[in-house]
């Protein structure tokens, strides 16, 4: 049973093929990681799947529906949510408000009801706040609830972004480098969090640089290089794949 | 907020306490009508100083409390309220534009304070309101004066090019209303924005209109100067009329002697002071004002400063005659003004007429060789 299926996705920027003909599938409760050297096109791929970029070719199918190039807010209604590599939190709002924002689809009613502060609006706001506090507890940020998000540490912001995404109760969660910039302890915390979310039946698509983490938690790995899928399989088979080793060594040699 | 209010209160209290007769003014000394308001304010300040140096009115000193309303009617209303409620003036002069005048008028009428406006529209005094008077000719009279002249020349079809500012738009509308009285048909009707750089498109369109015999340009500021230059540029040979809005030497200078040659407009005695007959009733007052203003400011007199001069003259004359600085007494005395020569004309107010001028006060002028001349 496939939840998310990527079919021949590709895009070019100014004649340069950033991603070309990439296909794979994700099942509920599965953690699929996309790896590859810097500039392999991982984030671009994510941006296409999540509707930020319009793909030049291919399809994204969610739950049997073609959702290619659909606006992110419509994808959210269909159960897809994501986090960002370079952090997109609402800086001038409190941590709690950031998390409540994740409840937007459940919380929002008519704007007139909001203006007049009608009981319906109050009730929904209260429910969202309760849920948000619960989530903050789960990611360990309950003590920071009233602080302005901009004042949090990098690792905390990463967890905040995940909490906000979880508030949507997504079927598919796209995580773009959730552990980047985190120390070992923080990485492990995020590690557990992701495993827990997957265990609850959410399909997780992950871009991550921390190879140890990827190997530890992934069920399935897709490897990109120069925008092309060069390998795919379980962690063990991928780590032995000569093409993958060559790509990484090549990249490191070039970088070094 | 409270501290600000107290600050204003202190400033208000700090006004000189020796004032005997408090005159209020709300003038557009800055903003889009500054071209008109600036000489008006300078005139009032100069005249008050001069009056007090001569001993004031009936031995009492006159204090002028003048506010700059930026030509904003909303501000004008606020300043009028301040003049009435806070400064407790006995009369108000001002309202450079019709918009600001209408705002002040409402306040003055409510508070029963006499008010002399410096703006053109006929609506200000028609219908007559008990406390409101005005010194400038109405723009309708300017149209009538011009159309009279056209009629004499046998002109029946004209084109108009008007500014979209209050002055131009109001006169444009009035001219359209009275044109049929003079058997004149307006066959082309164009406008320009006061800040436009070039009006050849509009003039070309008018020029190309079938049967146009003359062109009239109501407006003030730089617009009419540009229209006049474009007129010459397009070599339009038709008689060209400007409005009293540009009746000052500055217009000839800006439009250029060559381009301005032959332009006719209805003006006041002020522009042709040197040409007035020795027995002209306006001659003494015109000469005196011209000399005083030009010495004081170093800029040539214009019609608009003259309006302020006349308003001040009427006001002080009325207070003198009333022998009292009570608003109601002043009002009655203004309404009884008769045969008072100002720079604009000779004023005679009646309960039915709060303008007090007729068409004879306008003189048809023509520019020749860079000088104003009287059309006989």
């Amino acid at each position: 049973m496939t939840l998310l299926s990527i079919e021949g996705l590709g895009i070019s920027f100014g004649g340069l093929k950033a991603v070309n003909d990439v296909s794979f599938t994700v099942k509920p409760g599965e953690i699929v990681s996309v790896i590859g050297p810097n500039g392999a096109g991982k984030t671009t791929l994510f941006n296409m799947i999540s509707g930020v970029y319009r793909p030049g070719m291919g399809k994204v199918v969610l739950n049997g529906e073609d959702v290619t190039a659909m606006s992110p807010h419509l994808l959210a209604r269909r159960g897809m949510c994501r986090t960002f590599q370079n952090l997109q939190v609402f800086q001038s709002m409190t941590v709690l408000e950031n998390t409540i924002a994740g409840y937007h689809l459940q919380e929002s009613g008519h704007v007139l009801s909001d203006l007049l502060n009608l009981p319906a609006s109050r009730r929904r706001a209260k429910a969202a706040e309760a849920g948000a506090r619960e989530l903050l507890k789960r990611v360990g940020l309950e003590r920071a609830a009233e602080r302005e998000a901009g004042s949090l540490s990098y690792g905390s912001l990463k967890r905040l972004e995940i909490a906000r995404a979880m508030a949507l109760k997504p079927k598919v969660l796209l995580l773009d480098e959730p552990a980047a910039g985190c120390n070992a302890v923080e990485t492990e915390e995020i590690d557990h969090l992701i495993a827990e979310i997957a265990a609850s039946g959410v399909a997780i698509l992950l871009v991550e640089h921390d190879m140890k983490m990827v190997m530890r938690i992934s069920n399935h790995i897709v490897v990109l290089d120069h925008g092309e899928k060069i390998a795919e399989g379980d962690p063990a088979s991928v780590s032995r794949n000569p093409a993958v080793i060559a790509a990484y060594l090549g990249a490191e040699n070039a970088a070094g | 907020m409270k501290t600000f209010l107290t600050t204003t209160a202190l400033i208000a209290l700090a006004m000189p306490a020796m004032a005997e007769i408090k005159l209020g003014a709300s003038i557009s000394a800055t903003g889009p009508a500054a071209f008109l308001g600036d000489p008006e304010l300078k005139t009032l300040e100069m005249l008050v100083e001069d009056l007090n140096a001569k001993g004031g009115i009936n031995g009492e000193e006159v204090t002028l409390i003048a506010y700059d309303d930026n030509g904003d009617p909303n501000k004008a209303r606020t300043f009028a309220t301040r003049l009435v409620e806070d400064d407790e003036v006995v009369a108000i002069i001002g309202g450079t534009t019709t918009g600001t005048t209408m705002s002040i008028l409402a306040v003055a009428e409510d508070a029963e304070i006499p008010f002399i406006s410096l703006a053109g529209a006929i609506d200000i005094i028609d219908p007559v309101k008990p406390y409101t008077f005005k010194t400038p000719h109405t723009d309708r009279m300017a149209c009538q004066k011009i159309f009279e002249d056209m009629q004499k020349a046998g002109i029946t079809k004209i084109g108009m090019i008007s500014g979209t500012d209050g002055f131009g738009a109001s006169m444009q509308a009035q001219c359209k209303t009275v044109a049929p009285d003079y058997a004149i048909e307006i066959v082309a009707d164009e406008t320009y924005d006061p800040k436009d750089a070039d009006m050849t498109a509009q003039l070309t369109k008018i020029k190309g209109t079938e049967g146009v015999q003359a062109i009239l340009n109501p407006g003030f500021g730089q617009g009419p100067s540009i229209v006049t230059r474009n007129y010459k540029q397009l070599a339009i040979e038709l008689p060209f009329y400007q409005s009293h809005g540009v009746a000052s030497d500055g217009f000839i200078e800006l439009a250029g002697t060559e381009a301005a040659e032959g332009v006719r407009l209805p003006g006041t005695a002020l522009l042709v002071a040197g040409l007035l007959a020795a027995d002209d009733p306006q001659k003494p007052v015109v000469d005196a004002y011209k000399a005083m203003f030009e010495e004081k400011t170093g800029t040539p007199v214009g019609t608009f400063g003259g309006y302020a001069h006349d308003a001040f003259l009427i006001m002080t004359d009325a207070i003198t005659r009333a022998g009292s600085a009570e608003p109601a007494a002043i009002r009655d005395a203004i309404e009884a003004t008769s045969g008072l020569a100002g720079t604009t004309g000779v004023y005679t107010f009646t309960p039915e007429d709060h303008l007090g001028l007729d068409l004879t006060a306008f003189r048809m002028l023509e520019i020749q060789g860079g000088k104003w001349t009287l059309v006989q």
Partner: protein
Amino acid sequence: MSELLQFLLSGVTVGAVYALVALGFTIIYNASDVVNFAQGEFVMLGGMITVFTYAAGAPLPLAALVAIVATAALGVAMNKLAIEPARGAPVVSLVIITIGVSIFIRGAAQLVFDKQIHSFPAFSGDDPLRILGATILPQSLWVIGGALAVFVGLWLFFTRTLLGRAVLATSNNRLAAQLVGINTPFVMTLSFALSAGIGALAGVLVTPITMTSYDVGLAFALKGFAAAMLGGMGNPKGALVGGFLLGVLEGLTAGYLSSQYKDAAAFIVILGVLFFLPQGLFGRKSTDRV
């Protein structure tokens, strides 16, 4: 036929004025992403300082030079006192700051100069040139020539000189520009001096046509801003095309439709263009980076 030509010439004259003002916007925007609403005041200063210097007895070319240099110096002062200290402020704050500067300059001008309308003689006389039955004033050619010259100068500056590229680099990424050794404070100073100087030059060229007074700046700024946005902010080609397009539109609307609504036509076209090209005609396309 000669009517159409006259409408076009009228439009081109006005358009050249807009283009000159719009070009002034380009440099500051390129260096700092600030749209300087005080640009119109530079135009006013160019005209007014020339008027007063000329009236004081200086020959016209010298008076014009004084005006351009003085205005450029003022531009530098504006950068140092009002723009540099507000680095990183949101767009709306920058709009308020530059409008504040423009109100300040206007307030100062009314005190230093006066509230009268002024002009000075056209450079090559007032005898109109005739082209197929239509006419144009020699001064209009000066303005058109000025706009073209400034455009070519800017285009060469931005594409052919190291300094011009440094300006562009500073706009794209200030930090990176600093890292590769570009003296960014100097680039900013230079851009404000250039922008103000071009604004003053515009004022010198257009005053014999439009006249000047202490409060003409706002109208210039609005039309120049509209022209620059129509063409796509930051691109000298956009400023030039936007300016002429706006002017010709106004001329044709005044001639064929309604002179009352010629400004309306201009803004409707701007709204229409932005609807299809949200970055203007020649603007840089931007993508969200996430």
